[in-house]
């Protein structure tokens, strides 16, 4: 039987939950030998929506987009360092647009077997407005999805990785 997981993608968005997800994905890649990709999406779609809604000024949109580009590099570099420390090879990729659509597109293009994401909201709401982008991606990707919980346990697992 061939390896069930050949290619893992972890979605990194700058939250603590996504960094925990990255630590878990690094462990998973180390144990399984799967290829690992860290993926960040600069949410330009949301910024365009905020500009249209007049919540953002044009200058503000430009400023936030530049900040988010910097955030993307910083967080992907951080995840890269986490992987390098454990001798795991990782590719860094990023794109711009609607987050969940970009994730679905990347999963298809890269032929990902497993998408790893951080813990979702613990509170269930009937309000669709509160579904976040990671949750939308989870619902729409064609591959299996692993939602990482318990940051203390994941940290211990990551630390114990030689």
């Amino acid at each position, binding site marked *: 039987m061939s390896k069930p997981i050949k290619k893992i993608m972890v979605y990194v968005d700058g939250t603590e939950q996504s960094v925990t997800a990255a630590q878990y994905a690094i462990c998973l890649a180390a144990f399984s030998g799967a290829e690992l990709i860290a993926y960040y999406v600069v949410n330009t779609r949301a910024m365009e929506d905020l500009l249209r809604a007049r919540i953002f000024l044009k200058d503000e949109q430009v400023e936030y987009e530049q*900040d988010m580009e910097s955030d993307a590099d910083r967080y992907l570099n951080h995840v890269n360092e986490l992987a390098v420390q454990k001798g795991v090879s990782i590719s860094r990729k990023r794109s711009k647009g609607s987050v969940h659509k970009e994730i679905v597109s990347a999963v298809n293009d890269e032929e990902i077997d497993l998408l790893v994401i951080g813990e979702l909201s613990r509170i269930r709401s*009937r309000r669709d407005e509160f579904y*976040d982008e990671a949750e939308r991606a989870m619902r729409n990707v064609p591959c299996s999805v692993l939602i990482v919980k318990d940051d203390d346990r994941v940290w211990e697992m990551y630390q114990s990785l030689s």
Partner: protein
Amino acid sequence: MALIDMVTEEIVKIPLESKDKPDVLRELVQILKDAGQIDDFDAVLEVIREREDKGSTGLEKGFAVPHAKTPAVCSLKLAIGIAPDGIDFDSLDKQPSKLFFLLVAAPDQSGPHVEALSEIAKLSRSNALCKALVNADNAAEVVELLKGE
């Protein structure tokens, strides 16, 4: 952290006591201070005022979303204030603002900040929810309405 996880009774005030824009900004920041969410009241108020000076965040249909980034916080902070009688906030449609969502973010967390603002923008498009929030009796009811539980 998702926006919904940030909604607790401690960060909700209904009704707001302020009668004008400068006072309501101060009152919203005070909600964060009272809830133990921020230490430096003046620093947060200053960046919120600076952003409002560039252009009002008072939208249509009584919704206002004052927001800013500042190193005075290390994570996203949300305060919700409701003024059933409305407050002149120099809004787009010149109507008094009734629902205030104040969002303050750390400078290195633009992604979660944008996503939270986007969620608030989606909420503002729900006329039924906005009406229910304005007519809420207390903070607990506001939380219940937002969480839908």
